[in-house]
């Protein structure tokens, strides 16, 4: 076998090799390229290039020098022990990482003003009265509405339908009480606000915050003013106004805002302000990734600037091996509710939390990249992102979901159809029932049996009723064949002549206590009323409507609209008796709606809950409405899904675990294992034992080592016949290395076996792999010592067909080169190389290259210098003669192929060098590694 044998250190000091790389290589390149035999300086350079293409994200000049200085063996040894490489002084890396992170502290928050409360508001179609924001201003003639305010983006409870094109601002006020004792105990004061596009906020008439509005703080802002630039309401911004808390006084206070749009015809406006009394919990400060784009950028930053290259190559390998999709995680989190049935997280908050969970997982993979495979598998199985992504959170007793059980075998350990079958998947999925995620405190996050979530006590104010109930306790109902009086939902309305029946109204699906068997074809809506008594409204905790419905409804409390689903028209508008639901909705799973917005409407004594139920069409086969009204108390020690202090963590939920059935895995083989059903918290052990058996199974090292060989050496592996092909012997040795330790699966040993093998250094493996987009982008930036924040790279990568952390399919990005060879991704690669080489320092368009500095630092001036130098750096002397000539021609001719001398004196000098580098990085050979 022809090889590029690994070598020992060359020369004692660094100076000789530095010289070779910087000068001799630059000038004597063509000689080397033709040198052919695999010894001597040319071969040493090729070896270094090969190693850096596989065990790193491509050569940089500095790293080439290091390999040449220390020899490949020592370099590999150092990279196998990343902790031996000091990164604390790697400023290029650390300052870029710092920009992607933010400081987070835990706190206890108590709301002074909460979203959804009733504010007074005034449209900005004229100047507001003087002192409109003062504490004692009389706003009795202003309109009242719940926050948030706005239009156009469906996040507003008070919708300003007429705003677009008519007026550009609104003025809002909210009075709130702060008792003296609470004022004295007040901690930090925070204005939490979601806004679009700008605002000025006042506390008792004094400005406390201003965003995106021109003018110094304190200067008055006209109602005609516009926000300075667009600002989309994504997450809540938190503005610390603790320094202004002396403005608060005991008793009544007023928070007021003027909110301004970017332009009259802007498509949306939003203002959702909250005022929070915040107590920061000491010692809880931590760094978290800012968001999903920052997480993607972080992977790029490590690849380009970290000196622990092998660790990062493998970190990304494991991330891809155990791939998850942050978008699926985010949409799961987005659906979480708090115990009062309010949304726990906005969409933006859900994406951010998903990114943090992905980040935690990614850091684990980095930390253990050269560790033990079993640790990776166990961590991945318990990782909230994996539990959500492969639906283990839905895998519960009686409703097994096979998704994770299939992929842990097919993709994470055995390989497709390699030692298991459908029965094993079904059995294994039962083992994993009860594995889920829950919200918990940071302290208890690591304990799968630890406390989590919310404990509540529900008091039922209105029961759904049952078939046996006496008529006095029954609901009243009125068929929508004609319209009832307009005050039908009011407490004072006399419903004595309405019919009565037990709650649970409808037809057609056998779930109704009062069957409306004449409804189909005759009427589409039905009116319901139920009176209930409340002794002391002040003692109500959290008011909620739980309703199982088909297809839509509007609910009223004492005549005030409280909830609305699939009803035509706008919130607050009554719905006619002939109306139809705007969409189909099946009953079966009751939904809960927070009614805190009408809690103030509950009076001592008699109250009424009224519901107008809507069918989607006269011919619909069914209708349902089974409703109850609940007062919910949350017990101490609970943690809400929306609590920013806690974390989403792995939890084993015994009640969801299939403890009764015994399970058998790999039944007709010597790896057979029986897992008896275990009850309670011990149910967790079933899947844990299954994982250990999977780790012991011979299919696991064969598949995982094959993947490592494919990543580091060459693509020629058929996973169905791993004992065939050019790397079969190497695979044997890797499996041996895998099995030589206790516990088995020491990745460092396997990787060392690969990197020091004759196969790795064989001619067959040399430049035989196609770079994937990440490798293409990383190696390009590294070769040029390029400048990047990482933040523009995900978009480039996506255009080449690759997106980190958001791959939809669980098989990870492909390793084989043929997957990346197509015209679209080539076009995107070339455009990336062109753009990068064109952009100079200080470019605000994205990643850039300081060409002048680079050329000066390396003393490059003539066309020969430049072509030779970059050829060594990029291709280590292996570029075809014809390509070298093309590059030289490109550099020394104009657009019409006429020769033009290259000289630093000419104004086109840098531009031509830049364009030529763009061309060099578009050559066929740059796709290879």
């Amino acid at each position, binding site marked *: 076998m022809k090889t590029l044998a690994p070598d020992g250190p060359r020369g004692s000091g660094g100076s000789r090799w530095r010289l070779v790389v910087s000068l001799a290589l630059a000038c004597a390149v063509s000689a080397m390229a033709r040198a052919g035999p695999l010894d001597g300086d040319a071969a040493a350079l090729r070896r270094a290039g090969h190693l850096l293409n596989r065990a790193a994200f491509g050569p940089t000049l500095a790293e080439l020098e290091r390999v040449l200085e220390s020899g490949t063996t020592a370099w590999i040894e150092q990279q196998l022990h990343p902790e031996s490489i000091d990164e604390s002084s790697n400023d290029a890396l650390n300052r870029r990482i710092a920009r992607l992170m933010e400081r987070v502290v835990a706190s206890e928050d108590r709301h002074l003003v909460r979203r959804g409360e009733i504010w007074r508001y005034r449209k900005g179609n004229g100047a507001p009265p003087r002192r409109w924001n003062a504490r004692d201003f009389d706003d009795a003639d202003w309109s009242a509405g719940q926050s948030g305010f706005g239009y156009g983006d469906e996040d507003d409870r008070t919708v300003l339908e007429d705003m677009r094109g008519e007026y550009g601002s609104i003025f809002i006020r909210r009075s709130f009480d702060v008792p003296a004792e609470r004022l004295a105990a007040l901690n930090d004061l925070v204005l939490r606000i979601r806004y679009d596009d700008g605002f000025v906020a006042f506390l008792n008439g004094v400005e406390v915050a201003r965003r995106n509005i021109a003018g110094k703080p304190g200067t008055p802002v006209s109602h005609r003013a516009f926000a300075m630039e667009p600002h989309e309401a994504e997450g809540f911004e938190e503005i610390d106004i603790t320094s202004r808390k002396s403005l608060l006084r005991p008793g009544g206070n007023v928070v007021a805002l003027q909110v301004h749009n970017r332009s009259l015809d802007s498509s949306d406006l939003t203002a959702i302000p909250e005022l929070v009394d915040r107590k920061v919990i000491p010692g809880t400060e931590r760094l978290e990734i800012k968001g999903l784009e920052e997480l993607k950028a972080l992977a790029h930053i490590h690849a380009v600037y970290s000196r622990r290259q092998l660790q990062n190559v493998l970190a990304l390998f494991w991330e891809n091996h155990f791939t998850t999709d942050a978008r699926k995680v985010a949409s799961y989190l987005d659906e979480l509710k708090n115990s009062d049935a309010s949304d726990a997280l906005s969409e933006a908050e859900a994406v951010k939390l998903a990114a943090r969970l992905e980040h935690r997982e990614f850091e684990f993979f980095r930390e253990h990249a050269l560790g033990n495979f079993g640790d990776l598998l166990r961590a991945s199985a318990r990782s909230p992102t994996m539990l959500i992504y492969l639906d283990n959170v839905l895998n519960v007793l009686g*409703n097994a979901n096979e998704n994770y059980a299939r992929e842990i075998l097919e993709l994470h350990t055995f390989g497709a*159809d390699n030692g298991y079958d*459908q029965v094993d998947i079904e059995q294994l999925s039962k083992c994993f029932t009860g594995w889920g995620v829950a919200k918990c405190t940071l302290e208890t996050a690591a304990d799968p049996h630890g406390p989590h979530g919310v404990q509540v006590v529900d008091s039922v104010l209105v029961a759904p009723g049952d078939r046996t109930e006496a008529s006095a306790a029954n609901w009243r109902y009125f068929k929508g064949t004609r319209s009832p009086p307009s005050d039908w939902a009011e407490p004072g309305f006399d419903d004595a002549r309405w019919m009565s029946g037990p709650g649970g109204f409808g037809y057609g699906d056998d779930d109704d206590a009062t069957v409306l068997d004449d409804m189909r074809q005759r009427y589409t809506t039905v009116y319901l009323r139920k009176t209930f008594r409340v002794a002391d409204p002040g003692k109500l905790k959290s008011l909620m409507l739980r309703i199982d419905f088909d297809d839509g409804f509007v609910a009223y409390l004492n005549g005030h609209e409280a909830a609305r689903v699939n009803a035509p028209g706008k919130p607050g508008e009554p719905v006619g008796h002939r109306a139809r639901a705007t969409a189909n909705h099946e009953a079966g799973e009751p939904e809960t709606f927070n009614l805190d917005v009408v809690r103030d409407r509950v009076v001592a004594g008699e109250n009424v809950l009224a519901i107008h139920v809507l069918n989607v069409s006269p011919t619909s086969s069914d209708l349902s409405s089974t409703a109850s009204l609940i007062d919910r108390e949350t017990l101490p020690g609970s943690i809400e899904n929306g609590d920013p202090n806690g974390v989403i963590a792995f939890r084993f939920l015994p009640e969801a675990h299939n403890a009764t059935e015994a399970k058998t895995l790999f039944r007709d083989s010597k790896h057979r294992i029986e897992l008896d059903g275990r009850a309670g918290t011990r149910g967790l052990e079933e899947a844990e034992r299954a994982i250990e058996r999977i780790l012991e199974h011979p299919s696991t090292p064969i598949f995982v080592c094959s993947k490592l060989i494919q990543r580091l050496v060459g693509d020629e592996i058929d996973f169905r016949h791993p004992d065939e092909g050019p790397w079969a012997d190497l695979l044997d040795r890797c499996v041996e290395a895998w099995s030589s330790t206790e516990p088995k699966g020491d990745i460092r040993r396997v990787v060392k076996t690969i990197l020091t093998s004759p196969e790795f250094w064989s001619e067959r493996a040399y430049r035989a792999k196609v770079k994937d987009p990440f490798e293409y982008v990383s190696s390009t930036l590294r070769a040029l010592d390029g400048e990047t924040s990482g933040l523009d790279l995900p978009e480039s990568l996506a*255009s080449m067909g690759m997106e980190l952390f958001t791959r939809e*399919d669980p098989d990870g990005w492909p390793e084989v080169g043929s997957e990346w060879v*197509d015209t679209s991704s080539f*076009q995107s690669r070339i455009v990336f190389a062109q753009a990068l080489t064109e952009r100079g320092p200080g470019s605000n368009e994205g990643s850039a290259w300081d060409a002048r500095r680079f050329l000066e630092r390396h003393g490059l001036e003539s066309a020969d210098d430049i072509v030779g130098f970059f050829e060594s750096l990029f291709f280590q002397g292996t570029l075809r003669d*014809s390509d070298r000539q093309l590059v030289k021609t490109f550099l020394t001719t104009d*657009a019409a192929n006429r020769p033009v001398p290259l000289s630093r004196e000419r104004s086109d000098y840098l531009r031509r060098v830049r364009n030529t580098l763009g061309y060099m990085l578009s050559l*066929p050979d740059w796709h290879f590694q």
Partner: protein
Amino acid sequence: MKPDRRDFLGSAAGVTALTLGLNAFAPEIIRRKLIAAPPAPGKKKLVFIFQRGGMDGINAVIPRGDPSYSKKNRPNLFIEEEESLHLDGSDSRFPLEKELRSFVELHPSLEPMMEIYRAGDLAILHRVGYRNQSRSHFDSQQFYENGTADQPKLDVGMIYRHIAESLDLPTNPLAAVGLSSKQLLALKGPRAIPNFSDVRSFRFRGDRDQNLKFVGSAGGSKKGGLLGAYGRTDGSDKPYREAVYRTGLALADVMAKIRRIDPDNYEPDNGATYPDGDSLYFKAKQAAQLLKYTPVQIIGMNIGGWDTHTKQGRLTGGYPERLYRVAHVFQSLYRDLRDQWDDLVLISLTEFGRTSKENGSKGTDHGEAIVMFVAGGGVKGGVYNAPDVDGWMQDGGIFSTKNKRYLAHRTDFRAVFAEIFAKHFGDDDKTLDVVIPKYSELVKEDPKRFGRLGFL
């Protein structure tokens, strides 16, 4: 069989078509390709839409009357009789122009398809699949795209092989296009089939002169720039070398040819619409222009999101929305390409159907037989493999596989493609055996499942 690289390279005379050489019959393809004279270019066309993730065929083409298609088995997905579209002419909204009757019914989201069905130009192929169904997305997609049912790692696509055999790729590199930012496996092969998702950004940077120099076509020469570098093949036996050179050449070449395609200023014919903001509609719009204004004959595209394990959606939601989009694309291409409708076949396919019973998450899991839609001027409309309830129920209906979980297939997907390749494009038996590995053997072994359905 172990790959023999030397033999492979030798026979191919430097055409290192298959970069990996992992499969047994690849060299055979290459040999044949070299011997066969390039066939005369035809004008027959094919557009295929791959529904990634596994489309639930049972809720799309509903076997009404199969007692197992019930609210009990599909509590959250069951489509009522009065909600579905009837194919027996009983629905006054859809009077049939041709005599077509079937007991199955369509999901209401497929309404746009009815225009083609009524005209007798839509064939609905139920119960298509292959033996030993894989329930892995990745394997099963590869089977469908490779035209095999047991060699997942083969990296030349079935449609590609047909293109290589029947269309003149060397003189017309734009014979086929993948409308996707990553090339569809079905279109992958040694001579790069161009692919892009947005023709508007399929450009290099710089002005015209810079571009000419960069591409290497300045002054009429094709020896500089990218053309020079990618055009100089060197007989290297390294993996992927030829593929990379050819891809670079195809890129430079095709980029010039599709300059005229301008999706921003396109007016479709006959009331076809491609609403903005949807990637499938945008691809279909580009497909229509490519078919009208360029020599493209075969176009492939994807629509993802069919892996409906959770909250599949009954009348509203992800699944019904996607069904509608596919149906809308069929309708729009039917209208827009009326002039070439007789030369066009438009098909949809997916890697597997789904469990006949709903799962605990209001969704369905990986299953077996799929539904394909086939439309075109030469298509004999109707529903295939679903003659009447009795025939449907013969083997147990939607629970007809051995383990009684899935719908069993009655026709192998390769028979469907063979019919398209043979009847539409005129491939002879010999060619078919190259395009679909071992096809004639398979027909002999299992004439029932490999017999042609006769939709063309």
